[in-house]
């Protein structure tokens, strides 16, 4: 029913959350590979490296907002610069525990962000995200 994605990235510093999300994604056989980055900086560095090596780029990114070193918003700014001139077609979902309307509105203002999901992410939500991502690809 669901075709497996090649690469799903989770950029988040909450270890428990990433552990639980990875567990769910694996259960759902969502992706061939799942990569976790502890902050935005590590995510961007990985992206740059993949572009350089012309390796596969992530099909789907779950991005946290509140992270150390480089938070979600800073990641988006860097991502924009990278996407400019490079063909990156990753679908980015912001996944945050924040229920602040400000954060939701800010997410909407970036066209690179596909949607905003409030943690925790249920299996059903993940399934629907996967379906949408497949259609897009």
């Amino acid at each position: 029913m669901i075709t497996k994605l090649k690469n799903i990235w989770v950029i988040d510093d909450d270890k428990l959350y990433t552990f639980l999300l990875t567990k769910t994604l694996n259960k759902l056989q969502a992706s061939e590979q799942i990569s976790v980055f502890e902050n935005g900086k590590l995510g961007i560095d990985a992206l740059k490296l993949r572009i350089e090596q012309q390796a596969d780029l992530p099909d789907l990114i779950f991005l946290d907002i509140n992270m150390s070193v480089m938070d979600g918003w800073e990641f988006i700014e860097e991502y924009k610069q990278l996407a400019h001139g490079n063909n990156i077609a990753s679908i980015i979902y912001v996944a945050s525990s924040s229920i602040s309307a400000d954060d939701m509105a800010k997410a909407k203002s970036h066209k690179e962000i596909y949607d905003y999901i409030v943690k925790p992410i249920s299996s059903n939500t993940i399934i629907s995200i996967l379906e949408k991502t497949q259609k897009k690809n």
Partner: protein
Amino acid sequence: MKNDSGGVNDMIWSYFENSPDVVFILDKDKNIVFFNKNASKYILSDSGMSVRSGDSIYKFINPQMVDSFDIHFQKTINAESIERNINVFNPVNDKWWSATYQPIYTDGVVNAVSITISDITATKKTERQHEEISNVSRVGGWEADYINNTNYWSPVSRQILEIPADFSVGMHSAIDFYKAGPDRENIKVAIKNAIETGIGFDLELQVITHSGKNIWTRTKGKAEFHNGKVARLYGTFQDTTEKRSIYEDLLISQQYYKSLFEQNPNAVFALDLNEKFISVNENAALLAECSVPEMLGSEFAPFCPKEDVTRVMDFFTQAQLGRSVSYDCGFITAKGNRKEINITNLPIIINGVVVAIYGIAKDISESISAKNQLEKSEANLRTVFDNTDIGYVLLTESFKIVSFNNHAQSYILSKNQSPLKENEYMTGTVDDARSIDIAEVRDNVQKGKKVIYERNIKSAEYGDQWYNITFHPVSGIQNEVLGIIMEIENITARKKSEIELNKSFNLLNEQNKRLLNFSYIISHNLRSHTSNIKSILTFLEEAENEEEKVEMMEHLKNVSNSLDETIHNLNDVVSINNSVNLIYRPLFLIEFISKATDLLKDQIIQKKAIIDNKLLIDTSVNFNPAFLESIMLNFLSNAIKYSHPDRQPIITLDSYTDNGQFVLIIADNGIGIDLEKNGDKLFGFYKTFNGNSDARGLGLFICKNQVEYMGGKIEVESELGKGTTFKIFFK
């Protein structure tokens, strides 16, 4: 001079002595042997000399009159006549006098002459009037001869009757000229009477002339008898129509003046020289609230308020001296009511002499009270102007001071400027450090715009005072600028509350920020734990084996611990913001540094960190002990935590004084912070900058709040890879 010869003589003496006439008795030699009281007065007023018995009469006779006197005296002494009237006009007292000479017989022989001089001014005037009238009238004569039975009418009489030259007038036909009715009957009776009794007549009757004109005539007649029988009737015939009309005119004009007097809307009165009313009109009586007869003969003074008497009497005197005067004074009516009147006094001059004065009085009580009211309301306005809380200076367009009130003056004086003076120019006085540009004010005001300046004055007495200085244009009907109003409003209270408002606005803003931060903590930190709990519970429910369940329970335990820690931190934040009454006391910094290093002993040992304390042992700050403990612990633990992996951490503690403010320096040689990127987030919640996974982040936020709460501030200098220096400014 008194002749003492008994009762009758005494009476005569008294009569002569007190006679209103002037009486002299001269002896044959024309020496004065007797004179009465009035005689000496007359002589005095006529010649300025006093008369004595024995004086020659010539001493007192006007040289021009001597001849006339001699003739009359001689005729009298010769007993030729007993009565001669000599009319003399005396220009000194503007009077006519008549002198009567009378012989005085002693034993049948005239040996003295009495001269009586009477004032005939009044008679003379009437006489002169008659003369005037006679001059304009035509007098003719007539005669009826009863012996020869002829009838004669003089040419003037015929002219009066308009009888043609050839027309002969018979005895009876003459009577027929008199108007039928009472006129004709009267002349018939008069003629009959004259013929029978010899009594003459003098009648004023209407006559119809030959041509049919109705005229007034005066017919005088006298009878002449011969042997007891009437011989003739003769007399004069006069056309008095004109005289009659003059008389009528006189009557009319008298009535006219009388009505002018009586009907005058003003109170009109005449006062004699003793200030007694000699005539008053109805309105005068109305003004005085009594009747005309009551007023006549009474004095003016009682009608005059005491305070005005001298002044009014002075005006009367001026009028008596021939001047006309007009003035306002009070008036007390017969009923005791007070009125305000305006009086005009004119002299009444008869033959060049002031005999009385006229007064024309207007009741101005109402206009006086209206005037008083106006003055009062003007005074009220002035009071309002002077006592308003706003200072006003009225200026002409060229900044000349027209008027100002007390507030304006005290404003100017509070600026140590020269006091405002009317009719002086404002230029100098508006000037201050931030001078009000007069040209700017004028430009705007001429365009009809007002100009507002705000001024702050430091007053030693009242502290800071704020003023709004407004220049308003004063426009006329055609919008032309007539002047400028400078309005000085003390806005200190408003300004102070504005400052207070700003303070509370800032406070509110700060609290709002804290609230926002708080909501951030809730949404990002508390919720991250709850969302994890939710996830774990889902896994627990769906757990496929016991092993997974145990794993999830372990995770749940960790989350619960984290949640507890977060809630504790939150409590710290909230308690700072709620610490209303904190204890301040001098604290030795060294004590708190040792306490912190004690707590951080393990980390210091692990990282081999050096704490380089350059603070003096007795360095103290006035602070809250709990806050200082937290601050020391946080900064020192951060410095150790973010140490550079390639070198031994050195943490330097130092201090200096900036503008009297104690500043604590905590410097490290750690990894540093990219302030350009992270400066704004440095003191935010749960921010960690260094990728150090155990960073709590909340520490700096709490420190910042504690320092600011105590009235201080924190500054930070840092260079990536080299180290960070925090400066804590204590209040």
